[in-house]
């Protein structure tokens, strides 16, 4: 009897098995020892990695609540009483972080609404309608995913300068109303899971395709929309290159760009810099906790079927 044939511990109680022979029970014991060793190793590894992931983020929060003297204390202390909540308001004196937050929210919301509208429309045509040129156009859109944003950067900069969009939020919002390759691909994947019979039944009832799109497919693809929405919001919120190039006035800047400015201006004031970092990731982290399932499902889905 080999070790593999032994019932897994946990499903059956090992002591309940009558010891047929000394060899068998010895095999069972060694299996059990190996199993336990393996479990201990497994939990140690994932806990260690978990700590590596979590501790730097906690250290960011810890630093943001210290007074300047306590920041440079060696050996470092995790919590230094009293907690300096005042570091956060102080941040708003150094740079207009309130404006940064408002700008980031505004840009991310418009970009998200734009992407949801345009991508859900186009994806419906590509998923469920027949029209001349469909395959070629879709192939071109997919190929666009490969194009680095930086190749379009200089002509777009010139375009936005010529039409007076520099230092406005237009370059960071308007393009999203005209579809993104990734968003169309993602929404199409979701639509393909909706039964074709629903389209045919609606057609027999005299619905036009555009009616089918907003009466049937939009309501049924809420998880897909949530995923695309979260991705777009996150991408917009975390974007550095776009705001860095297109926004030159401080009052138009986003929180992510503002954070780079803070790092330069508050040189050495680590408690302020880390407070800025906390503020910049807080809204996004809260959003992640609320929409976690959509988020993780979305990544899994694009990865597996892509």
């Amino acid at each position: 009897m080999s070790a593999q044939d032994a019932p897994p511990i946990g499903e059956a109680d090992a002591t309940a098995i009558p010891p047929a022979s000394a060899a068998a029970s010895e095999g069972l014991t060694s299996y059990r020892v190996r199993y336990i060793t393996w479990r201990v190793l497994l939990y140690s590894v994932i806990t260690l990695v978990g700590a590596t992931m979590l501790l730097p983020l906690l250290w960011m929060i810890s630093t943001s609540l210290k007074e300047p003297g306590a920041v440079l204390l060696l050996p470092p202390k995790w919590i230094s009483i009293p907690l300096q909540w005042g570091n956060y308001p102080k941040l708003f004196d150094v740079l207009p972080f309130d404006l940064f937050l408002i700008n980031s929210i505004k840009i991310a919301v418009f970009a998200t609404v734009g992407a949801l509208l345009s991508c859900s429309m186009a994806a419906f045509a590509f998923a469920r309608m027949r029209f001349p040129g469909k395959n070629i156009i879709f192939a071109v859109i997919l190929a666009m995913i490969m194009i680095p944003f930086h190749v379009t950067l200089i002509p777009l900069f010139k375009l936005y300068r010529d039409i007076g969009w520099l230092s406005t939020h237009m370059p960071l919002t308007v393009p999203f109303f005209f579809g993104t390759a990734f968003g169309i691909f993602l929404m199409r994947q979701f639509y393909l899971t909706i039964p074709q019979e629903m389209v045919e039944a609606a057609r027999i009832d005299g619905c036009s395709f555009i009616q089918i799109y907003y009466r049937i497919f939009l309501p049924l693809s809420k998880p897909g929309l949530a995923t695309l929405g979260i991705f777009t919001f996150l991408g917009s919120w975390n974007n550095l290159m776009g705001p860095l190039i297109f926004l030159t006035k401080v009052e138009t800047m986003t929180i992510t760009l503002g954070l780079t400015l803070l790092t330069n201006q508050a040189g050495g004031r680590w408690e302020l810099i880390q407070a800025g970092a906390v503020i910049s990731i807080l809204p996004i982290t809260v959003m992640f906790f609320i929409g976690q399932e959509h988020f993780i499902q979305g990544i899994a889905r694009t990865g597996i079927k892509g």
Partner: protein
Amino acid sequence: MSAVTTPARGRFRDFLGSNRGREAIEAYILILPTILGLIVFTASPVLASLYYSFTRWNLLSTPKWQALDNYIELLTEDPLFWITIKNTGYYVLGTVPTGTVLALLLAIALNQKIRFVAVFRTIYFLPVVSSVVAISVLWLWLYQSDFGIVNELLRFLGFRGVRWLSSVTWAMPAIIIMSIWHGLGYNIVIFIAGLQSIPQDYYEAATVDGANAWHKFINITIPLLSPVTFFVLTLSVINSFQVFAQAYVMTRGGPVNSTKTIVYYLFQQGFENFHMGYASALAYVLFVIIVSLTLFQFWFQRRWVHYEL
């Protein structure tokens, strides 16, 4: 219009009147914004960029045609270009293989029957949602030479600290370590989904045949996961070739250009020195590198990616 219609125009009108024709019209209405966006925000800029790459242009004057001069200068006279290529290559080779293998191993670990799996998954994923800028600002502090926690930990373990970001030797490894840390959760999630899509029957059949865990891993998990691995690799290579924010926030490309990447150099040439033509040529070189590597990976995948056993 008039009663005189050519047969072709008549057929077109018939098509528009038919069900198929109405369907096509509706479809074009739905994709119209996308087509416009494609032309205005992607296709035209890509072509314009190609044109600018053959010119000398400082944004204020009109672009002056100078054929291949930018490319010749890049490839033969500009040592900084080759330094940025080398640095970017270093970054890609430092992050992609290690990041992929680590993510795969951790995905396998998280895919075992373990308690609190959702908690671990959430913790692993936390850095992913944070911006590269916020993460860079955090690690700037962690890597700080005298008071940073990384050196403090090294000293605690009996090593000597390193002047991470001000050292030519250590600045790039520091950025690589941070970037692996940042992106790990994303790839883990993809790998877990891939692992869960492998049918359990294969494992059961292998168990009956007396295969041990290692054989199952090599003969079932690795081949059946290869399409996912391919996706992760391709995407990671495309993304990591465009590395910028880390260097911008943490080192400004220094010390002594040791962390200056292609995109950072493009940003400097274009938006600090206003050498728009030269920057466009740099963008096209990056474009060509990314497209060739992606096509190479698609060609090479036939040798190692299995879509079934």
